[in-house]
């Protein structure tokens, strides 16, 4: 029997970390890969169905309107400002800064959900009219689940940073939430171009 060879100690390692040093960041990246693949599949299906027919949208189906998606894209790009600020404040453990910016982000998220409703109307086609309508709706719905999830998460975080239960390590989550937000915004810029603009190109 000999004593164990202790070659190091974790006692002084930090418990709050950001970015790729934190577990939740990796989890977020994992979900972004899954969601990204899903959106890619929706977009690929869009083009697959597109290439099978000669006119897109099919004769008799109007093209989508552009106002609602344009408003949405502008909203999303503007929302990056408070979201990025919340991220920076989180990294500096500046709770007051996190609070203000998360409130702003929540307001943006709610506005974006409302505009999403108008985006459906702007497709100018029902999902059950033809395959074009089905796949256009599918893309907007698929991205809509991301938007809903991000809204829910942001609201919960906002409540959390005002709660007495707040612990230092929770603040790192704000930063990961921002990452997901960028992903949601970026993917919508691409999908909106596909769904709303590409019918004008053919």
């Amino acid at each position, binding site marked *: *029997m*000999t*004593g*164990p*060879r*202790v*070659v*190091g*100690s*974790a*006692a*002084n*390692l*930090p*418990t*709050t*970390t*950001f*970015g790729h*040093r*934190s*577990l939740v960041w*990796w*989890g977020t990246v*994992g979900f972004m*890969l*899954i969601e990204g*693949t*899903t959106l890619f*599949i*929706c977009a690929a*299906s869009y083009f*697959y*169905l597109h290439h*099978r*027919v000669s006119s897109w949208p*099919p004769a008799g189906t109007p093209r989508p309107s552009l106002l609602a998606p344009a408003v949405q894209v502008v909203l999303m790009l503007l929302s990056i400002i408070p979201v990025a600020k919340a991220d920076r404040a989180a990294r500096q*453990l500046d709770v007051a800064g996190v609070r203000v910016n998360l409130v702003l982000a929540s307001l943006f998220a709610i506005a974006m959900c409302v505009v999403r409703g108008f985006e459906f109307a702007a497709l100018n086609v029902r*999902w*059950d*009219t*033809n*395959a*074009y*309508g*089905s*796949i256009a*709706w*599918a893309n907007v719905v*698929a991205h809509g689940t991301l938007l*809903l999830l991000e809204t*829910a998460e942001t609201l*919960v975080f906002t409540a*959390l940073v005002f709660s007495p*239960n*707040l*612990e*230092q*390590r*929770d603040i790192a989550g704000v930063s990961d939430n921002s990452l997901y937000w960028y992903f949601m915004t970026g993917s919508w810029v691409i999908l909106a171009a596909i769904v709303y603009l590409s019918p004008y190109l053919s």
Partner: protein
Amino acid sequence: MTATVAPTVGPGRVPEPLPELIGQLEQTWRDEPGILGWIKSVDHKSIALRYMITAFVFFLLAGLQALGMRAQLARPENTLLGPDLYNQFFTVHGTTMMFLFAVPVMQAVGLYFVPMMVGTRNVAFPKLNAYGYWTYLFGGLFIYAEWWFLNSGPDVGWFSYVPLANSVFTPGKRADVWAQGVTFTEIASLAAAVEIIVTVFKLRAPGMTLNRLPLFVWAMVVQSFMVLFAMPWVATATQFLAWERLVSTHFFDPTRGGDPLLWQHLFWFFGHPEVYIIFVPALGMVSSVVTAFTRRHVFGYPAMVLSLISTGVLGFGLWVHHMFATGIPQLSESFFTAASMVIAIPTGVQIFCWIATIWDGRPRFTVPFLWVIGFVVVFIIGGFSGVMVASVPFDRQVHDSYFIVAHFHYVLIGGAVFPLLGAFYYWFPKVTGRMLGERLGRWQFWLFFIGMNLTFFPMHQLGFEGMPRRVYTYLPETGWGPLNLLASIGAATLAVSVILLIVNVWSSLRRGLPAGDNPWDADTLEWATTSPPRPYNFALIPVVDGRGPVWRHPEGLPVFGGLRTDVRDVLLTTLLDAEPDSRHRHPVPTIWPLHAAIATTITFVSLIYTPWGAVVGFPLLFIAFVGWAWPRGRDHREQQVIEAERPVEVAS
């Protein structure tokens, strides 16, 4: 409070700290008592064990359906199962085997052993892990409940082709049950994939650099990435199908600009990798067993890792070969034929490396090793018929015949079930602390091996003779009777073998030999702790300085101290070099993952019947999400902990 250390060291083990600290670790990490405690558990071992048992029960159910089909086909013009029931039998058999047995059971083994093999105390996201299990369980129960109680058993084949599966040809709810049931299992397996990847990336023991990872862990990482990129295809496809049936979309409807082939592309983009998703972890299991039973590290570690990765990548290139009969353009046909054959190369490399290892070592022909041998033999037969199918003209000939049934059962049973059973005999002592019976094990192996070949080998010939798959009966004049009878006798032999397995487990649990920590003298970290493992896996985190840490340190592994014992502390290390980097506090037991799974179930099931299901479901999901995410800092114990933690510097 730091675990300061005093000696209790056995050979190759992780040393243990002072007894009172052990007591505190135990207190901190164990599940709560009682049935509620069982439900609330977030221990990866408890959850993985449930996963395995559930998957095994589904295997038995699918096996019963297989027996039913073989009984029906044992002689011409048999009337045991009518056409309608037969359709449900093969569909539910295929669906259960693929989605409720093979993929989940592989992931379950990973969820149990990956954290132990990398030397940590739990998976990266314990609540998500619990959620994944419940979702999987409810999805499986849902399919079976619909079948038994509502006569809504899926009946359009395990790949549910449209237009057969659309609402014109399949009114009623059977195809919806299939689509939503499958969606449940996809969510669960995506969750498990994220668990495994992040656990391996961030929770490895100090010093376990990527090139010291056990091959089984590599295999699980590759499989998890495949799941990540493959499952969304079938999840999207099944959602499209569900909408097609519920709200009359037209994705697959050629009269409104849709295309049935879209379904086939989406499905096989998942379906082909699916085979490798099942097979790649099995390769890892074989490497573990070969290492332990030859007492040699597997020859050619870099070649092994590269083969695993390239199997994973190539697995995605091959989906079109399932659609040769649909007339895709010539050029791409020959490309995919070539690609189908290329995948034989990485598998061949691995088989070569194992054989070289066995050659060099002194193999012990105990039961786990027998399964490895069986795997190589059966799988090579399956691979051979696969290369035949990969040639386009040949595929046209045997397409949808029993040759295909024979081929994929050789691949799936040879490539997955044999290694899995080997792994079962190998790891059972770790999980339960008892050995399985060797004699019964041999009997079981040989009955399985013989039964398997009796069942499926004759089917090659039946395929040549033109017997189509998915027929519930055939005429005496076809002359297919004798070979079918042989196949059915084989199936009965398989059943006897599975019964022997259950008897073996049962008697071992009652009076099996105690296993000790490392009964096979194996090299990976799961053997460096007790059997069964304590809730915290390792009292002190082992430090790794090479491949096969247990063999390197017969005097006891070096360890890393300083994790707290009063909260669920885990050690995070850096991605490549596994340098100690930070501490993370893991969650305590919680009921919310179960609630979230219930909310998911209500949403999906009601969506089969009405689009308003979403309106009920989403608020429920939101509530469950809040309950899940809200930090539980309120109870006294945890509050104290926060106090103690206050002055902590932040690193960014």
